[in-house]
């Protein structure tokens, strides 16, 4: 799966699991930041990150190791898509 396809899946998760307005989800690009408080971000808070992590693990069948610092991977859709794509089988 290419990072671009991963990004599309993440947009689906935004709507289905994080209850984003579909239009707002469609506007996101690779450059869009995730965490609340960052300029131009979609404003995810700590509970959103837990829900997002569960959804990612269940959608892509991967495990994200809590003992590693995951914050840099969750900075933007670009970093997150690359991180997920790198964990998929065949990557």
């Amino acid at each position: 799966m290419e990072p671009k396809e991963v990004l599309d899946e993440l947009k689906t998760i935004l709507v289905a699991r994080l209850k984003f307005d579909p239009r707002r989800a469609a506007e996101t690009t690779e450059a869009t930041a995730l965490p609340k408080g960052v300029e131009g971000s979609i404003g995810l808070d700590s509970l959103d990150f837990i829900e997002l992590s569960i959804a990612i693990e269940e959608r892509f069948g991967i495990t994200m190791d809590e003992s590693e610092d995951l914050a840099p991977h969750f900075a933007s859709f670009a970093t997150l898509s690359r991180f997920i794509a790198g964990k998929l089988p065949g990557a």
Partner: protein
Amino acid sequence: MRRVVVTGLGAVSPHGIGVKAFWSGLATGACAIRELSVIDTEGFRCRIGGEIPEPVAGSMRRTRADRFALAAAEEALTDAGLAPDEREEMALIVGAVGGGMLEAEEWYWATSRGRNTRPVPAVRSVLPCAHADALAARLRVRGPRHTVVTACSSGAVAVAEAAALIAEGVVDVALAGGVDAITRICFMGFNALKLLDPAACRPFDRDRRGMSIGEGAGFLVLEDAAAARARGARTYAELGGYGMTTDAYHITAPEPEGDGMARAIRAALRAARESPAAVQYVNAHGTGTPQNDRVEARALERVFGAGAALVSSTKSMIGHTMAAAGSLEAIATVLALGHGMVPPTANIETPDPDVHFDCVARTAREIALDCAISNSFGFGGQNVTLLFRRR
């Protein structure tokens, strides 16, 4: 009052994932009580229990119990053939006790020993009501929602409460059941009460020495009979009535004459307009503790008369699955009606001479059934009887 029918079943049990594995284990009288691996039992008299024998799907960020609940609930909804839009307004009633305690214990044990762990899943999911949170969000269930905490009868009370909401017309459909994972506090608590048998439990055996703990999840889809008929749903059984009483007697011991239990059974009969003679099978609470089985047999004798019904204990095969027990046993009762087969009581060697009932020792019995009850009794004397009729 509207009639309530069962149109979907889902189970995660020590016999495996799915209703098929559950029933196949029960029908063959297999005992799924084995050495525990989910918690460390080093140094305890008892080292066994009814543990889920295979990995259950779902993110490991979810608690073990939440993964059980999701698997059983999804199976029940699929089994009922409810489309997503038909689920939206249904009620969700969950019997729970342990919540995310297993993961909270892991976090606490690691932290108190100086190992840095991130407490995220533990903190978010520790309360018993966390299962209902996870289920509602994942399955998009948006009707009334309760979490029932009545100790070992929680799963059965959940089914009764769901039936009440349907009977009174609050909702047409409800997803109801119970869930629990094995936890250290539960295992050690029952150990401290000297209620755990070091060998697999032997309900209704003369030499029984206590219970075995277990884990799992059982969910049922309950539905207004007319609504189920209108959408052409397959119906397993009718929930004819239920009775709920309290002993108001002791924190752990049942009232010795079985008064509270007998009142629950009679209340269920009254609600279902059935005579005691109509009940052919009793799926007993049957924990295997000396006290429970003696008092339960006394209560049954007071209501039905000696020998008047077949009696068996699901816990003899899967252990006491705590908040899941009442709902898994409701499923066992519904399937017994449908299959015309009474699951046995495993592990009986010498029937207790003070139990004046045929407890279906070790081998299932084929018999056409029209009416059966399932008993669940929680600590503190929280008694529930569910009565099911074949459809």
